[in-house]
Protein backbone atom coordinates (compact mmCIF):
# COMPACT_ATOMS: atom_id res chain seq x y z
CA UNK A 1 0.00 0.00 0.00
CA UNK A 2 2.80 2.36 0.89
CA UNK A 3 4.16 2.11 -2.58
CA UNK A 4 0.83 2.70 -4.26
CA UNK A 5 0.47 6.05 -2.54
CA UNK A 6 4.08 7.16 -2.52
CA UNK A 7 4.96 10.85 -2.44
CA UNK A 8 5.44 10.93 -6.18
CA UNK A 9 2.12 9.29 -6.89
CA UNK A 10 0.36 11.75 -4.66
CA UNK A 11 1.98 14.57 -6.60
CA UNK A 12 0.98 12.99 -9.89
CA UNK A 13 -2.58 13.05 -8.66
CA UNK A 14 -2.66 16.45 -6.98
CA UNK A 15 -0.67 18.84 -9.17
CA UNK A 16 -3.23 18.81 -12.02
CA UNK A 17 -5.84 19.94 -9.50
CA UNK A 18 -3.93 23.10 -8.69
CA UNK A 19 -0.49 24.20 -9.81
CA UNK A 20 -0.57 22.37 -13.12
CA UNK A 21 -4.26 22.57 -13.88
CA UNK A 22 -4.94 21.54 -17.49
CA UNK A 23 -7.41 24.41 -18.06
CA UNK A 24 -6.01 27.36 -16.12
CA UNK A 25 -2.28 26.67 -16.42
CA UNK A 26 -1.89 24.63 -19.59
CA UNK A 27 -4.93 26.32 -21.20
CA UNK A 28 -6.20 23.09 -22.77
CA UNK A 29 -9.78 21.98 -23.28
CA UNK A 30 -11.07 25.56 -23.41
CA UNK A 31 -13.63 24.99 -26.19
CA UNK A 32 -15.69 22.48 -24.24
CA UNK A 33 -15.31 24.59 -21.09
CA UNK A 34 -17.10 27.38 -22.95
CA UNK A 35 -19.70 25.14 -24.57
CA UNK A 36 -21.12 23.04 -21.74
CA UNK A 37 -20.94 25.37 -18.75
CA UNK A 38 -24.15 27.35 -19.14
CA UNK A 39 -25.74 24.96 -16.62
CA UNK A 40 -24.18 23.14 -13.68
CA UNK A 41 -25.57 19.67 -14.37
CA UNK A 42 -24.09 19.13 -17.85
CA UNK A 43 -20.82 20.61 -16.62
CA UNK A 44 -20.58 18.03 -13.83
CA UNK A 45 -21.47 15.17 -16.18
CA UNK A 46 -18.98 16.42 -18.74
CA UNK A 47 -16.26 16.70 -16.12
CA UNK A 48 -16.88 13.16 -14.88
CA UNK A 49 -16.99 11.76 -18.42
CA UNK A 50 -13.64 13.33 -19.25
CA UNK A 51 -12.21 12.04 -15.96
CA UNK A 52 -13.31 8.47 -16.68
CA UNK A 53 -12.08 8.55 -20.26
CA UNK A 54 -8.73 10.15 -19.41
CA UNK A 55 -8.12 7.65 -16.61
CA UNK A 56 -8.94 4.52 -18.58
CA UNK A 57 -7.32 5.60 -21.84
CA UNK A 58 -4.20 6.38 -19.82
CA UNK A 59 -4.30 2.88 -18.29
CA UNK A 60 -4.87 1.13 -21.61
CA UNK A 61 -2.14 3.03 -23.44
CA UNK A 62 0.23 2.59 -20.52
CA UNK A 63 -0.32 -1.19 -20.60
CA UNK A 64 0.44 -1.48 -24.29
CA UNK A 65 2.98 1.37 -24.51
CA UNK A 66 5.89 -0.97 -25.16
CA UNK A 67 4.23 -2.70 -28.09
CA UNK A 68 3.00 0.41 -29.93
CA UNK A 69 5.19 1.18 -32.95
CA UNK A 70 6.29 4.78 -32.57
CA UNK A 71 5.22 5.84 -36.07
CA UNK A 72 1.57 4.92 -35.65
CA UNK A 73 1.15 5.73 -31.98
CA UNK A 74 -1.24 8.65 -32.56
CA UNK A 75 -3.64 6.39 -34.45
CA UNK A 76 -3.48 3.74 -31.73
CA UNK A 77 -4.18 6.37 -29.08
CA UNK A 78 -7.10 7.70 -31.10
CA UNK A 79 -8.61 4.25 -31.45
CA UNK A 80 -8.47 3.69 -27.68
CA UNK A 81 -9.94 7.11 -26.92
CA UNK A 82 -12.64 6.74 -29.56
CA UNK A 83 -13.70 3.38 -28.13
CA UNK A 84 -13.96 4.81 -24.61
CA UNK A 85 -15.80 7.91 -25.80
CA UNK A 86 -18.32 5.73 -27.61
CA UNK A 87 -18.88 3.64 -24.48
CA UNK A 88 -19.41 6.73 -22.30
CA UNK A 89 -21.68 8.30 -24.88
CA UNK A 90 -23.84 5.16 -25.03
CA UNK A 91 -24.00 4.92 -21.23
CA UNK A 92 -25.12 8.56 -21.01
CA UNK A 93 -27.80 7.98 -23.64
CA UNK A 94 -29.05 4.97 -21.74
CA UNK A 95 -29.03 6.31 -18.18
CA UNK A 96 -28.95 10.12 -18.39
CA UNK A 97 -30.74 10.90 -21.63
CA UNK A 98 -31.67 14.51 -20.81
CA UNK A 99 -28.12 15.46 -19.99
CA UNK A 100 -26.79 13.70 -23.05
CA UNK A 101 -29.19 15.75 -25.17
CA UNK A 102 -27.94 18.95 -23.51
CA UNK A 103 -24.33 17.95 -24.07
CA UNK A 104 -25.19 17.03 -27.68
CA UNK A 105 -22.04 16.72 -29.81
CA UNK A 106 -19.68 17.66 -27.03
CA UNK A 107 -19.56 14.14 -25.61
CA UNK A 108 -18.42 12.84 -28.98
CA UNK A 109 -16.00 15.72 -29.23
CA UNK A 110 -14.19 14.59 -26.08
CA UNK A 111 -12.08 12.63 -28.54
CA UNK A 112 -10.60 15.92 -29.75
CA UNK A 113 -10.07 17.25 -26.23
CA UNK A 114 -6.44 18.31 -26.04
CA UNK A 115 -6.13 17.16 -22.43
CA UNK A 116 -6.60 13.51 -23.45
CA UNK A 117 -4.01 13.41 -26.19
CA UNK A 118 -1.71 15.54 -24.07
CA UNK A 119 -1.80 13.11 -21.14
CA UNK A 120 -1.39 10.08 -23.37
CA UNK A 121 1.62 11.55 -25.14
CA UNK A 122 3.23 13.20 -22.15
CA UNK A 123 2.52 10.71 -19.38
CA UNK A 124 0.99 7.35 -20.28
CA UNK A 125 3.58 6.58 -22.98
CA UNK A 126 6.34 6.78 -20.38
CA UNK A 127 4.83 5.59 -17.11
CA UNK A 128 3.25 2.50 -15.57
CA UNK A 129 -0.51 1.83 -15.49
CA UNK A 130 -1.12 2.82 -11.85
CA UNK A 131 0.66 6.18 -12.14
CA UNK A 132 -1.09 6.77 -15.44
CA UNK A 133 -4.44 6.02 -13.82
CA UNK A 134 -3.78 8.55 -11.04
CA UNK A 135 -2.58 11.09 -13.60
CA UNK A 136 -5.74 10.61 -15.64
CA UNK A 137 -8.01 10.96 -12.62
CA UNK A 138 -6.11 14.05 -11.47
CA UNK A 139 -6.23 15.79 -14.81
CA UNK A 140 -9.87 14.88 -15.36
CA UNK A 141 -10.82 16.25 -11.94
CA UNK A 142 -8.71 19.36 -12.51
CA UNK A 143 -10.70 19.95 -15.69
CA UNK A 144 -13.98 19.14 -13.93
CA UNK A 145 -13.16 21.53 -11.10
CA UNK A 146 -12.82 24.50 -13.45
CA UNK A 147 -15.93 23.49 -15.36
CA UNK A 148 -17.96 23.37 -12.15
CA UNK A 149 -16.68 26.76 -10.94
CA UNK A 150 -17.49 28.39 -14.28
CA UNK A 151 -20.89 26.70 -14.52
CA UNK A 152 -21.72 27.68 -10.94
CA UNK A 153 -21.38 31.38 -11.70
CA UNK A 154 -22.98 31.14 -15.13
CA UNK A 155 -26.06 29.28 -13.95
CA UNK A 156 -26.44 31.32 -10.76
CA UNK A 157 -26.10 34.75 -12.40
CA UNK A 158 -27.47 33.84 -15.83
CA UNK A 159 -30.53 31.77 -14.94
CA UNK A 160 -30.85 32.38 -11.20
CA UNK A 161 -30.83 28.63 -10.51
CA UNK A 162 -28.39 25.94 -9.39
CA UNK A 163 -28.75 22.37 -10.68
CA UNK A 164 -32.19 23.49 -11.81
CA UNK A 165 -33.28 24.59 -8.32
CA UNK A 166 -34.53 28.12 -7.98
CA UNK A 167 -32.12 30.39 -6.11
CA UNK A 168 -32.62 33.97 -7.24
CA UNK A 169 -35.94 34.03 -9.06
CA UNK A 170 -38.08 35.22 -6.18
CA UNK A 171 -40.72 37.89 -6.46
CA UNK A 172 -39.40 40.21 -3.70
CA UNK A 173 -35.97 40.26 -5.29
CA UNK A 174 -37.42 40.97 -8.70
CA UNK A 175 -39.59 43.77 -7.38
CA UNK A 176 -36.35 45.41 -6.27
CA UNK A 177 -35.41 45.32 -9.95
CA UNK A 178 -33.06 42.35 -9.95
CA UNK A 179 -32.68 40.61 -13.29
CA UNK A 180 -30.71 37.63 -14.56
CA UNK A 181 -27.71 38.51 -16.68
CA UNK A 182 -28.33 37.17 -20.19
CA UNK A 183 -24.71 37.58 -21.19
CA UNK A 184 -23.74 34.91 -18.65
CA UNK A 185 -25.50 32.32 -20.79
CA UNK A 186 -23.39 33.22 -23.82
CA UNK A 187 -19.91 31.72 -24.39
CA UNK A 188 -18.01 35.06 -24.15
CA UNK A 189 -18.81 35.31 -20.46
CA UNK A 190 -17.48 31.78 -19.85
CA UNK A 191 -14.19 32.96 -21.31
CA UNK A 192 -14.20 35.99 -19.01
CA UNK A 193 -14.84 33.77 -15.97
CA UNK A 194 -12.05 31.35 -16.96
CA UNK A 195 -9.82 34.40 -17.39
CA UNK A 196 -10.76 35.60 -13.90
CA UNK A 197 -9.88 32.19 -12.40
CA UNK A 198 -6.50 32.29 -14.17
CA UNK A 199 -6.01 35.87 -12.98
CA UNK A 200 -6.79 34.86 -9.39
CA UNK A 201 -4.52 31.81 -9.50
CA UNK A 202 -1.60 33.70 -11.00
CA UNK A 203 -1.82 36.57 -8.58
CA UNK A 204 -1.81 34.06 -5.70
CA UNK A 205 1.16 32.10 -7.04
CA UNK A 206 4.03 34.24 -8.22
CA UNK A 207 5.85 31.25 -9.74
CA UNK A 208 3.14 30.94 -12.40
CA UNK A 209 3.77 34.45 -13.70
CA UNK A 210 5.89 34.83 -16.80
CA UNK A 211 8.71 37.33 -16.68
Amino acid at each position, binding site marked *: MGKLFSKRNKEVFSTPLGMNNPVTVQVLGICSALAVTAKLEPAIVMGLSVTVITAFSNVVISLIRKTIPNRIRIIVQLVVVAALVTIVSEILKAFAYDVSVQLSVYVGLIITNCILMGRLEAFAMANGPWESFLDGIGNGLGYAKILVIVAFFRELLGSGTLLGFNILNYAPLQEL*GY*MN*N*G*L*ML*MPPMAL*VIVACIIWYQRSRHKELQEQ
Partner: protein
Amino acid sequence: MKALRNYLDKIKPNFEEGGKYHAFRSVFEGFESFLFVPNATSKSGTHIHDSIDSKRIMSIVVIALVPALLFGMYNVGYQHYLAIQEDAGFWAVFGYGFLAVLPKIIVSYVVGLGIEFVVAQWKKEEIQEGFLVSGMLIPMIVPVDCPLWILAIATAFSVIFAKEVFGGTGMNVFNVALITRAFLFFAYPTKMSGDAVWINTDSILGLGKGQVVDTFTGATPLGQVAVSPVTDPVIVNAVGEPASFWDMVAGFIPGSIGETSVIAILVGAAILLWTGVASWKTMLSVFVGGAVMGWVFNQWGPDTAMAHMPWFQHLVLGGFCFGAVFMATDPVTSARTETGKYIYGFLIGVMAIIIRVMNPGYPEGMMLAILFMNVFAPLIDYFVVQGNIKRREKRLLKTTNN
Protein backbone atom coordinates in the same frame (compact mmCIF):
# COMPACT_ATOMS: atom_id res chain seq x y z
CA MET B 1 -6.71 80.33 -6.77
CA LYS B 2 -3.59 81.31 -4.85
CA ALA B 3 -5.18 80.28 -1.56
CA LEU B 4 -6.11 76.89 -3.02
CA ARG B 5 -2.56 76.39 -4.25
CA ASN B 6 -1.18 77.24 -0.82
CA TYR B 7 -3.63 74.90 0.84
CA LEU B 8 -2.68 72.04 -1.47
CA ASP B 9 1.00 72.67 -0.83
CA LYS B 10 0.31 72.61 2.89
CA ILE B 11 -1.48 69.26 2.91
CA LYS B 12 0.76 67.67 0.30
CA PRO B 13 3.29 66.08 2.72
CA ASN B 14 0.46 64.07 4.27
CA PHE B 15 0.05 62.17 1.03
CA GLU B 16 3.68 61.44 0.30
CA GLU B 17 5.55 58.27 1.24
CA GLY B 18 5.27 57.83 4.98
CA GLY B 19 2.57 60.49 5.35
CA LYS B 20 -0.67 60.09 7.24
CA TYR B 21 -2.91 59.70 4.21
CA HIS B 22 -0.48 57.80 2.03
CA ALA B 23 -3.29 55.44 1.00
CA PHE B 24 -5.00 58.31 -0.83
CA ARG B 25 -1.90 59.47 -2.69
CA SER B 26 -3.38 58.81 -6.13
CA VAL B 27 -6.59 60.63 -5.25
CA PHE B 28 -4.66 63.70 -4.13
CA GLU B 29 -2.45 63.63 -7.19
CA GLY B 30 -5.49 63.25 -9.44
CA PHE B 31 -7.17 66.30 -7.96
CA GLU B 32 -4.02 68.35 -7.93
CA SER B 33 -3.29 67.78 -11.60
CA PHE B 34 -6.96 68.31 -12.38
CA LEU B 35 -6.85 71.76 -10.81
CA PHE B 36 -3.32 72.89 -11.69
CA VAL B 37 -0.86 72.31 -14.47
CA PRO B 38 1.76 69.90 -13.08
CA ASN B 39 5.03 71.74 -12.49
CA ALA B 40 7.22 68.75 -13.28
CA THR B 41 9.50 69.41 -16.23
CA SER B 42 11.82 67.16 -18.18
CA LYS B 43 15.33 67.08 -16.76
CA SER B 44 17.58 65.93 -19.58
CA GLY B 45 17.91 66.35 -23.31
CA THR B 46 15.80 68.55 -25.50
CA HIS B 47 12.01 68.11 -25.37
CA ILE B 48 9.32 69.85 -27.31
CA HIS B 49 6.08 70.02 -25.38
CA ASP B 50 2.81 70.73 -27.11
CA SER B 51 0.45 72.81 -25.04
CA ILE B 52 -2.29 70.27 -25.72
CA ASP B 53 -2.01 67.23 -23.47
CA SER B 54 -4.42 64.39 -22.91
CA LYS B 55 -6.11 66.30 -20.09
CA ARG B 56 -6.98 69.16 -22.44
CA ILE B 57 -8.13 66.80 -25.18
CA MET B 58 -10.46 65.10 -22.73
CA SER B 59 -11.80 68.43 -21.49
CA ILE B 60 -12.52 69.59 -25.02
CA VAL B 61 -14.39 66.39 -25.83
CA VAL B 62 -16.46 66.79 -22.66
CA ILE B 63 -17.27 70.38 -23.67
CA ALA B 64 -18.23 69.16 -27.14
CA LEU B 65 -20.59 66.65 -25.54
CA VAL B 66 -22.43 69.30 -23.53
CA PRO B 67 -24.84 70.51 -26.27
CA ALA B 68 -25.99 66.95 -26.96
CA LEU B 69 -26.28 66.24 -23.24
CA LEU B 70 -28.34 69.34 -22.52
CA PHE B 71 -30.59 68.66 -25.45
CA GLY B 72 -30.84 65.03 -24.34
CA MET B 73 -32.07 66.17 -20.92
CA TYR B 74 -34.60 68.48 -22.52
CA ASN B 75 -35.79 65.72 -24.85
CA VAL B 76 -36.29 63.27 -21.96
CA GLY B 77 -38.63 65.80 -20.38
CA TYR B 78 -40.22 66.65 -23.71
CA GLN B 79 -41.03 63.01 -24.49
CA HIS B 80 -42.44 62.52 -21.00
CA TYR B 81 -44.78 65.51 -21.15
CA LEU B 82 -45.75 64.53 -24.69
CA ALA B 83 -46.69 61.06 -23.46
CA ILE B 84 -48.89 62.43 -20.67
CA GLN B 85 -50.17 65.23 -22.98
CA GLU B 86 -49.48 68.08 -20.63
CA ASP B 87 -48.22 71.54 -21.48
CA ALA B 88 -45.32 72.31 -19.18
CA GLY B 89 -43.00 75.28 -19.25
CA PHE B 90 -39.43 75.04 -20.52
CA TRP B 91 -37.94 74.74 -17.05
CA ALA B 92 -40.35 72.02 -15.95
CA VAL B 93 -39.50 70.02 -19.06
CA PHE B 94 -35.78 70.53 -18.69
CA GLY B 95 -35.91 69.98 -14.92
CA TYR B 96 -37.65 66.65 -15.36
CA GLY B 97 -35.03 65.50 -17.87
CA PHE B 98 -32.24 66.82 -15.66
CA LEU B 99 -33.48 64.80 -12.69
CA ALA B 100 -33.86 61.70 -14.87
CA VAL B 101 -30.37 61.90 -16.38
CA LEU B 102 -28.29 63.24 -13.48
CA PRO B 103 -28.28 59.98 -11.42
CA LYS B 104 -26.92 58.12 -14.45
CA ILE B 105 -24.05 60.59 -14.86
CA ILE B 106 -23.23 60.34 -11.15
CA VAL B 107 -23.34 56.53 -11.15
CA SER B 108 -21.16 56.29 -14.24
CA TYR B 109 -18.51 58.67 -12.84
CA VAL B 110 -18.52 57.30 -9.29
CA VAL B 111 -18.17 53.68 -10.41
CA GLY B 112 -15.71 54.32 -13.23
CA LEU B 113 -13.50 56.83 -11.43
CA GLY B 114 -13.67 54.73 -8.27
CA ILE B 115 -12.17 51.79 -10.12
CA GLU B 116 -9.57 54.04 -11.74
CA PHE B 117 -8.54 55.42 -8.36
CA VAL B 118 -8.25 51.97 -6.83
CA VAL B 119 -6.23 50.61 -9.75
CA ALA B 120 -3.95 53.65 -9.80
CA GLN B 121 -3.30 53.29 -6.07
CA TRP B 122 -2.70 49.56 -6.40
CA LYS B 123 -0.31 49.82 -9.34
CA LYS B 124 1.35 52.90 -7.82
CA GLU B 125 0.65 54.97 -10.90
CA GLU B 126 -0.90 58.34 -11.46
CA ILE B 127 -4.58 58.54 -12.19
CA GLN B 128 -5.20 58.87 -15.88
CA GLU B 129 -7.75 61.18 -17.41
CA GLY B 130 -9.26 58.61 -19.73
CA PHE B 131 -12.47 58.07 -17.88
CA LEU B 132 -13.52 61.74 -18.02
CA VAL B 133 -14.89 61.25 -21.52
CA SER B 134 -16.11 57.66 -21.15
CA GLY B 135 -17.98 58.61 -17.97
CA MET B 136 -19.85 61.28 -19.88
CA LEU B 137 -20.47 59.10 -22.93
CA ILE B 138 -21.92 56.17 -20.98
CA PRO B 139 -25.07 57.91 -19.68
CA MET B 140 -25.64 59.45 -23.12
CA ILE B 141 -25.84 56.17 -25.01
CA VAL B 142 -28.30 54.31 -22.79
CA PRO B 143 -32.10 54.53 -22.75
CA VAL B 144 -33.56 56.74 -20.03
CA ASP B 145 -35.22 53.79 -18.31
CA CYS B 146 -31.98 51.85 -17.83
CA PRO B 147 -31.81 50.96 -14.09
CA LEU B 148 -28.89 52.43 -12.19
CA TRP B 149 -27.55 49.20 -10.66
CA ILE B 150 -27.36 47.65 -14.12
CA LEU B 151 -25.51 50.72 -15.37
CA ALA B 152 -23.10 50.43 -12.44
CA ILE B 153 -22.35 46.76 -13.18
CA ALA B 154 -21.84 47.43 -16.87
CA THR B 155 -19.55 50.39 -16.19
CA ALA B 156 -17.48 48.35 -13.74
CA PHE B 157 -17.27 45.46 -16.20
CA SER B 158 -16.09 47.58 -19.07
CA VAL B 159 -13.61 49.67 -17.08
CA ILE B 160 -12.03 46.49 -15.69
CA PHE B 161 -12.21 44.17 -18.68
CA ALA B 162 -12.06 46.57 -21.60
CA LYS B 163 -9.56 49.00 -20.16
CA GLU B 164 -7.58 48.15 -17.04
CA VAL B 165 -6.64 44.60 -18.07
CA PHE B 166 -5.26 46.00 -21.32
CA GLY B 167 -3.12 48.46 -19.37
CA GLY B 168 -5.35 51.48 -18.76
CA THR B 169 -5.98 54.67 -20.69
CA GLY B 170 -4.61 54.66 -24.21
CA MET B 171 -4.07 50.89 -24.30
CA ASN B 172 -7.63 49.70 -24.79
CA VAL B 173 -8.55 47.87 -27.98
CA PHE B 174 -12.25 48.64 -27.75
CA ASN B 175 -14.09 51.85 -27.02
CA VAL B 176 -14.87 51.64 -23.29
CA ALA B 177 -18.24 53.39 -23.47
CA LEU B 178 -19.39 51.11 -26.27
CA ILE B 179 -18.32 48.00 -24.35
CA THR B 180 -20.54 49.25 -21.52
CA ARG B 181 -23.40 49.54 -23.93
CA ALA B 182 -22.71 46.19 -25.55
CA PHE B 183 -22.63 44.52 -22.12
CA LEU B 184 -25.98 46.08 -21.26
CA PHE B 185 -27.41 45.20 -24.65
CA PHE B 186 -26.55 41.51 -24.44
CA ALA B 187 -26.93 41.03 -20.68
CA TYR B 188 -30.18 42.89 -20.10
CA PRO B 189 -31.88 43.11 -23.51
CA THR B 190 -35.28 43.94 -22.02
CA LYS B 191 -33.85 47.12 -20.49
CA MET B 192 -31.85 48.15 -23.55
CA SER B 193 -34.06 47.53 -26.56
CA GLY B 194 -37.68 47.14 -27.48
CA ASP B 195 -40.46 49.69 -27.16
CA ALA B 196 -40.77 50.28 -23.42
CA VAL B 197 -37.46 51.78 -22.34
CA TRP B 198 -36.97 54.98 -24.35
CA ILE B 199 -39.47 57.25 -22.64
CA ASN B 200 -39.70 57.67 -18.87
CA THR B 201 -43.39 57.64 -18.03
CA ASP B 202 -43.09 57.83 -14.23
CA SER B 203 -43.00 61.01 -12.21
CA ILE B 204 -39.71 62.03 -10.58
CA LEU B 205 -39.83 63.67 -7.13
CA GLY B 206 -43.43 64.64 -7.76
CA LEU B 207 -42.52 66.29 -11.06
CA GLY B 208 -44.49 65.29 -14.14
CA LYS B 209 -47.34 63.33 -12.61
CA GLY B 210 -49.91 62.23 -15.13
CA GLN B 211 -51.59 59.45 -17.00
CA VAL B 212 -50.08 58.24 -20.26
CA VAL B 213 -52.48 58.77 -23.15
CA ASP B 214 -54.03 55.81 -24.98
CA THR B 215 -52.29 56.47 -28.27
CA PHE B 216 -48.88 56.23 -26.57
CA THR B 217 -46.17 54.25 -28.31
CA GLY B 218 -42.64 54.12 -26.99
CA ALA B 219 -40.97 52.75 -30.12
CA THR B 220 -38.03 54.58 -31.65
CA PRO B 221 -38.25 55.47 -35.36
CA LEU B 222 -35.78 52.70 -36.24
CA GLY B 223 -37.73 50.27 -34.06
CA GLN B 224 -40.90 51.14 -35.95
CA VAL B 225 -39.24 50.75 -39.32
CA ALA B 226 -37.70 47.40 -38.35
CA VAL B 227 -41.07 45.78 -37.64
CA SER B 228 -43.06 47.55 -40.35
CA PRO B 229 -45.00 45.22 -42.67
CA VAL B 230 -45.13 47.83 -45.48
CA THR B 231 -42.08 49.25 -47.24
CA ASP B 232 -42.88 52.95 -46.66
CA PRO B 233 -44.18 53.23 -43.08
CA VAL B 234 -45.23 56.55 -41.55
CA ILE B 235 -42.90 57.13 -38.61
CA VAL B 236 -44.87 58.37 -35.62
CA ASN B 237 -43.89 60.16 -32.42
CA ALA B 238 -44.69 59.10 -28.84
CA VAL B 239 -48.43 59.81 -29.15
CA GLY B 240 -48.99 58.38 -32.61
CA GLU B 241 -48.76 61.58 -34.67
CA PRO B 242 -46.54 61.45 -37.76
CA ALA B 243 -42.99 62.61 -37.07
CA SER B 244 -41.51 64.98 -39.64
CA PHE B 245 -37.97 64.89 -41.00
CA TRP B 246 -37.36 68.08 -39.02
CA ASP B 247 -38.28 66.24 -35.78
CA MET B 248 -35.63 63.63 -36.56
CA VAL B 249 -32.95 66.23 -37.32
CA ALA B 250 -33.76 68.41 -34.31
CA GLY B 251 -34.05 65.32 -32.12
CA PHE B 252 -37.63 65.35 -30.82
CA ILE B 253 -37.86 61.57 -31.13
CA PRO B 254 -37.42 58.75 -28.60
CA GLY B 255 -33.93 57.29 -28.40
CA SER B 256 -30.88 56.95 -26.19
CA ILE B 257 -30.38 60.08 -24.09
CA GLY B 258 -27.72 61.93 -26.06
CA GLU B 259 -28.10 60.53 -29.55
CA THR B 260 -31.34 62.00 -30.89
CA SER B 261 -30.44 65.53 -31.96
CA VAL B 262 -28.37 65.82 -35.11
CA ILE B 263 -28.05 69.58 -34.61
CA ALA B 264 -26.64 69.36 -31.07
CA ILE B 265 -24.23 66.63 -32.17
CA LEU B 266 -23.07 68.73 -35.13
CA VAL B 267 -22.36 71.63 -32.76
CA GLY B 268 -20.16 69.21 -30.82
CA ALA B 269 -18.57 68.05 -34.07
CA ALA B 270 -17.76 71.66 -34.97
CA ILE B 271 -16.01 72.13 -31.62
CA LEU B 272 -14.02 68.91 -32.08
CA LEU B 273 -12.98 69.80 -35.63
CA TRP B 274 -12.21 73.43 -34.90
CA THR B 275 -9.92 72.49 -32.02
CA GLY B 276 -8.39 69.69 -34.08
CA VAL B 277 -9.17 67.05 -31.47
CA ALA B 278 -11.10 64.73 -33.77
CA SER B 279 -10.19 63.76 -37.31
CA TRP B 280 -12.47 65.11 -40.03
CA LYS B 281 -11.32 62.23 -42.23
CA THR B 282 -12.83 59.59 -39.97
CA MET B 283 -15.99 61.60 -39.37
CA LEU B 284 -16.63 62.40 -43.02
CA SER B 285 -15.93 58.89 -44.23
CA VAL B 286 -18.37 57.36 -41.72
CA PHE B 287 -21.11 59.55 -43.20
CA VAL B 288 -20.00 58.77 -46.75
CA GLY B 289 -19.96 55.04 -46.01
CA GLY B 290 -23.43 55.18 -44.48
CA ALA B 291 -24.81 57.25 -47.35
CA VAL B 292 -23.33 54.96 -50.01
CA MET B 293 -24.57 51.77 -48.38
CA GLY B 294 -27.98 53.33 -47.68
CA TRP B 295 -28.24 54.37 -51.33
CA VAL B 296 -27.18 50.90 -52.52
CA PHE B 297 -29.93 49.32 -50.42
CA ASN B 298 -32.40 51.91 -51.73
CA GLN B 299 -31.63 50.76 -55.26
CA TRP B 300 -31.11 47.03 -54.97
CA GLY B 301 -31.97 46.15 -51.38
CA PRO B 302 -34.38 43.49 -50.12
CA ASP B 303 -38.06 44.32 -50.00
CA THR B 304 -38.20 45.64 -46.43
CA ALA B 305 -38.99 49.01 -44.90
CA MET B 306 -35.45 49.31 -43.51
CA ALA B 307 -33.88 48.86 -46.94
CA HIS B 308 -36.27 51.32 -48.53
CA MET B 309 -35.76 54.03 -45.96
CA PRO B 310 -34.13 56.99 -47.79
CA TRP B 311 -30.35 57.04 -47.29
CA PHE B 312 -30.34 60.52 -45.76
CA GLN B 313 -32.87 59.36 -43.18
CA HIS B 314 -30.55 56.49 -42.22
CA LEU B 315 -27.91 59.07 -41.37
CA VAL B 316 -30.05 61.17 -39.01
CA LEU B 317 -31.77 58.34 -37.12
CA GLY B 318 -30.51 56.23 -34.25
CA GLY B 319 -26.97 56.50 -33.01
CA PHE B 320 -25.40 57.09 -36.42
CA CYS B 321 -24.44 60.74 -35.92
CA PHE B 322 -23.41 60.28 -32.31
CA GLY B 323 -21.28 57.28 -33.19
CA ALA B 324 -19.69 59.00 -36.17
CA VAL B 325 -18.77 62.15 -34.25
CA PHE B 326 -17.88 60.93 -30.75
CA MET B 327 -17.19 57.19 -30.99
CA ALA B 328 -15.55 56.50 -34.33
CA THR B 329 -13.11 59.38 -33.85
CA ASP B 330 -11.80 58.08 -30.51
CA PRO B 331 -8.04 58.49 -31.09
CA VAL B 332 -7.14 55.36 -29.13
CA THR B 333 -9.33 52.79 -30.85
CA SER B 334 -9.51 54.17 -34.40
CA ALA B 335 -6.99 53.78 -37.19
CA ARG B 336 -3.98 56.07 -36.78
CA THR B 337 -2.63 56.37 -40.30
CA GLU B 338 -4.20 59.11 -42.40
CA THR B 339 -5.21 56.79 -45.25
CA GLY B 340 -6.36 54.26 -42.69
CA LYS B 341 -8.83 56.75 -41.23
CA TYR B 342 -10.70 56.93 -44.52
CA ILE B 343 -10.95 53.14 -44.76
CA TYR B 344 -11.83 52.72 -41.09
CA GLY B 345 -14.57 55.36 -41.15
CA PHE B 346 -16.03 54.25 -44.45
CA LEU B 347 -16.35 50.64 -43.31
CA ILE B 348 -18.03 51.71 -40.04
CA GLY B 349 -20.71 53.54 -42.02
CA VAL B 350 -21.16 50.61 -44.40
CA MET B 351 -21.31 48.01 -41.60
CA ALA B 352 -23.80 50.04 -39.55
CA ILE B 353 -26.28 50.22 -42.42
CA ILE B 354 -25.76 46.55 -43.35
CA ILE B 355 -26.55 45.46 -39.78
CA ARG B 356 -29.65 47.68 -39.70
CA VAL B 357 -31.01 46.34 -42.97
CA MET B 358 -29.90 42.72 -43.02
CA ASN B 359 -30.37 41.75 -39.37
CA PRO B 360 -34.01 42.02 -38.31
CA GLY B 361 -33.03 41.43 -34.67
CA TYR B 362 -30.98 44.62 -34.41
CA PRO B 363 -32.73 47.79 -35.58
CA GLU B 364 -29.53 49.73 -34.81
CA GLY B 365 -26.07 48.66 -35.95
CA MET B 366 -23.81 51.57 -35.07
CA MET B 367 -22.52 50.12 -31.79
CA LEU B 368 -21.66 46.75 -33.30
CA ALA B 369 -20.16 48.34 -36.41
CA ILE B 370 -17.77 50.53 -34.41
CA LEU B 371 -16.76 47.71 -32.06
CA PHE B 372 -16.20 45.46 -35.06
CA MET B 373 -14.00 48.00 -36.80
CA ASN B 374 -12.08 48.67 -33.54
CA VAL B 375 -10.72 45.15 -33.98
CA PHE B 376 -9.61 45.85 -37.52
CA ALA B 377 -8.07 49.29 -36.95
CA PRO B 378 -4.55 47.90 -36.27
CA LEU B 379 -4.81 45.65 -39.33
CA ILE B 380 -5.79 48.60 -41.52
CA ASP B 381 -2.84 50.56 -40.14
CA TYR B 382 -0.52 47.64 -40.82
CA PHE B 383 -1.48 47.44 -44.47
CA VAL B 384 -1.27 51.20 -44.96
CA VAL B 385 2.22 51.26 -43.45
CA GLN B 386 3.34 48.23 -45.46
CA GLY B 387 1.96 49.80 -48.64
CA ASN B 388 3.90 52.93 -47.91
CA ILE B 389 7.11 50.99 -47.31
CA LYS B 390 6.70 49.07 -50.60
CA ARG B 391 6.01 52.23 -52.56
CA ARG B 392 9.07 53.98 -51.20
CA GLU B 393 11.20 50.90 -51.73
CA LYS B 394 10.17 50.84 -55.37
CA ARG B 395 10.97 54.51 -55.76
CA LEU B 396 14.37 54.00 -54.18
CA LEU B 397 15.18 51.08 -56.48
CA LYS B 398 14.16 53.15 -59.48
CA THR B 399 16.40 56.08 -58.59
CA THR B 400 19.40 53.91 -57.70
CA ASN B 401 19.07 51.86 -60.89
CA ASN B 402 19.17 54.89 -63.12
